[in-house]
C-alpha cells in the first residue's frame, strides 16, 4: 500500500521544483511554461492521491478538469509565445522590460 504522505512528499517536491523552475527560467518562455506544467502535475498528483485515500470521486473529476484547463492554458500560452515571437523575433523574457519603472 502506498503511503499517502509519501505521495504528498513527491508532489511537494514537484511543486517546489516547479515554482523554482519557473523562476529559474527567467528568459526562456517555453521552458518556463513547462515548469508551470510541472506545478500542475504536482497538484494533480495530490488530488489523485487524496481521491484515492478518501475514496471520493470528486478529486478525480477535479484532476480531469485541471488537465483540460491546463491544456487550454498551454494552448493560449503557446499562442502568446508565437505572437510574441512574430513581433519581437525572440522569446527572451529579459527583453520584455518596456513595462517597468
Amino acid at each position, binding site marked *: 500500500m502506498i503511503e499517502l504522505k509519501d505521495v504528498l512528499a513527491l508532489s511537494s517536491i514537484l511543486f517546489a521544483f516547479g515554482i523554482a523552475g*519557473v*523562476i*529559474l527560467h*527567467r528568459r526562456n518562455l517555453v521552458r518556463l511554461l513547462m515548469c508551470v506544467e510541472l506545478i500542475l502535475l504536482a497538484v494533480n498528483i495530490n488530488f489523485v492521491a487524496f481521491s484515492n485515500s478518501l475514496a471520493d470521486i470528486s478529486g478525480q473529476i477535479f484532476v480531469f478538469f485541471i488537465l483540460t484547463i491546463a491544456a487550454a492554458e498551454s494552448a493560449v500560452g503557446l499562442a502568446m509565445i508565437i505572437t510574441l515571437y512574430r513581433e519581437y523575433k525572440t522569446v527572451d*523574457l529579459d527583453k520584455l522590460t518596456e513595462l517597468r519603472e
Partner: protein
Amino acid sequence: MDLAYLVILAPLFAAAITALWGNRLGRKFTHSVTSASVFVALVVSSVLLYKVYILQQAPYYVQMFKWLAISDAIKITIGVHVAPLTTLMMVVVSAVSFCVHIFSIGYMEEDEGYNRFFTYIAFFTFSMLTLVAANNFLQLFIGWEAVGLSSYLLIGFWYSKPSATAASLKAFLVNRVGDMGLVLGVAAIFYTFNTFEFADIFSQIAGDGAQNDINFLGFMISPYEVIAILLFIGAMGKSAQFPLHVWLPDSMEGPTPISALIHAATMVTAGVFMVARLAPVYEQAEFARMFMLTIGTITAISMGFVAIFQYDIKRIVAYSTISQLGYMVIGLGASAYSASIFHLATHAFFKALMFLVAGSVILALHHKQDVRKMGGLRKKMPISFVCAVFAALALVGFPGTSGFFSKELIIEAVQHSGMGEVFYILAMFGVLLTSIYSFRFIFIVFFGKPRMSAEAYDHIHEPAKVVTIPLILLAIPSFLVGALMFNHLILNNALGVAALAQPDNPLAVSISEFSGWGDMLLAVVHHPIALILILVGCGIAWFITRSGEFAEHKSKSVKGILSNGYYLNEIYAVFVVQPVQVIALIAHKAFDNAFIDTVLVNGTAFVIEKSSRLLKKTQTGYVYHYLLAMFIFVVIFGWLAIRSGVTL
C-alpha cells in the same frame, strides 16, 4: 438727556461730518464746524464744572450706552462722569483745543490737508474728552488709544515726509509698549476687584483693603503694587517718562499746533490724569509711588539737561515738556495728586502758549526751525515775544505766575513726602535747569543779532490775527490762572482727592500754613532758594547765548551726548530694534520657512516621494523578480500559517 453728552458728541459729530463731507463743503465750513463743536464742548464742560464745583452738586454719571455685558456680572458702559476732576480736565482740554483750532486756521492756511487736519484735531478732542470723562477702565482705554491714534495721524500729517511717518510710527509703537502695561494693569484690576468701574474699585478699597496677592512672575506681590506699577507703565508711555519718552521729541515732526495741543497740553498729561484719577489705588502702593518719584525725577532732570543743548526750536520746547511731565509725576509720587493736576492745568496753558509762540515764529520764518538761524526777533514780532516771555516766566515758576504755584507745591510736597532729601534737592536743581533752557530759548530767539540774511529778516512780520489772538488768549491764563486755582484746587480740595484730606499727606502738610495764594507768594521771601535758582539760571542762559555763535556739538562730548538725548534712540536701535529684526528674520527664514516648511512639511513630502521612488524600483520589469518576490511571500505567509496552525 443730559448736556454732558454734548461734551463728547459735539467734537465727534464735527469730526464725522468733516471727514465725510469736508472736502465738498469747503475749508470755511470745516473749520467753523470743528471750532464751534469744540467751543460747545468748552461751554458745556464749563457749565458742568460750575455745577459740580460752584453749585456743589454730587458727582454723577451719564450713561450713553451699554458697551458690553457678560454673565450679568460684568457690565461695561460708555458715558460721561461728571465730577470736579473730570470737568476740570474737560475745560482745560476744550479750552486749549479751542485756541489751537483758532490758531490753526491761520497756521494751516496754506496746507492742502486743511480739512483733514481739522477733522483730526476734532477727533482728537473727542478722544481726549472720552478719556477724561471715563468712569471705567474700558472707556478710559478707548479714549487712551484713540488719542494715540490721533497723535499718530497728526504726527504723520505730512505723510510724504519720511521723517514724519517714521516719527508717527515710533510714537505709536512706544506708546503701545506703555499701553501693554495699561492693559495688564486693567487685567490686574479686574482680577482683583472683578469690575472695571472706578467707583466700585474705590469703594472696595475703602471697604475691605485686604486682597489676594498676585503671582507676578513667581513673586507674590500685593495687588495694589502690581496694579499701580502696571498702570504707571501705561502712563509712562503716554506721559513720555524716561525711558519711554523717546517718541515725544520726534513727534515734533507734526504741525506745530499739534505739538501744542497734543504733545504739550493734553494727551501727554493723560497718564498723569489717570494716576490722579486712581489716587486711592496709588495710596495703597507705596513702592509704586517711590517708583514714580524716581522715574519722575530722572525724567525731569535728565531731560532738562537735554533741553539746554537743543537747536531745534520745537525740540527745546519738547524736552522742556518732558521735563515738566517729570515734575507732574514727581508730584504723583509724592502723593500730591492735586498739585500734579494743578501743574498739569497750568502747564497746559503756558506750554501750549510756548508752542504756539514757536509756531508763530516758525510761520514767520517760513517753516525754519533752527534757532541758530534766528535771533533778534523781538523787534519784528512783539506780540510773540511778549507771550514767549510770559510763557517762559510761567515755565520757570517765577513767583506770581501760574507755574510758580503749581511747581512750588510739587517741590514742597516732595520735601514733606519723607521719601528722601535727595529728591527734594534734585527737584530744586530741576528749577535751575528749567530756568536755563527757558531763558536760553528767549535769548536765542528774540535777542541778539539776527542770524539770517538781512533780506529775510526784513520780511519777517507778525502773523495774522487768527494766530496772535490765541496767543493772547492763552497768555492770560498762563499768567493768572495759578493763583485762582491754588485757592480752589488745593486749599478747597475741589477735586475731592481723598488723600489730601489725610493730615499726613505731604501736600496737606505743605499747605497747612497757607490760607490763600497770597501767603504762598509771600513765602518766597522766607524761602528764596527757588527764585535765586531761577535768576542764576537766567544768568547762565545769558552767558551761554551771549556770543551768538553756536557750534555743532561733537558727538562724543558731554554736550553731544546731551544734545542727542543720551543717544537713547541709538541705544534702542541697537538693543531693541535690531534684535527684533534679527529675531524676525530668523523666525521667518530659519524656523518657519526652513525648519517647519522645508524640513517638516516638504520634508515629509520629500520622504514620501523618495520612498515612492524606492518602492517603484521593485517594479523592475523582470518577471522572475516578481515571481521570486511572490515565492518568498508564499514561503513567509506559509510559515505564518504553520506557526499559527501549530498552536491550534
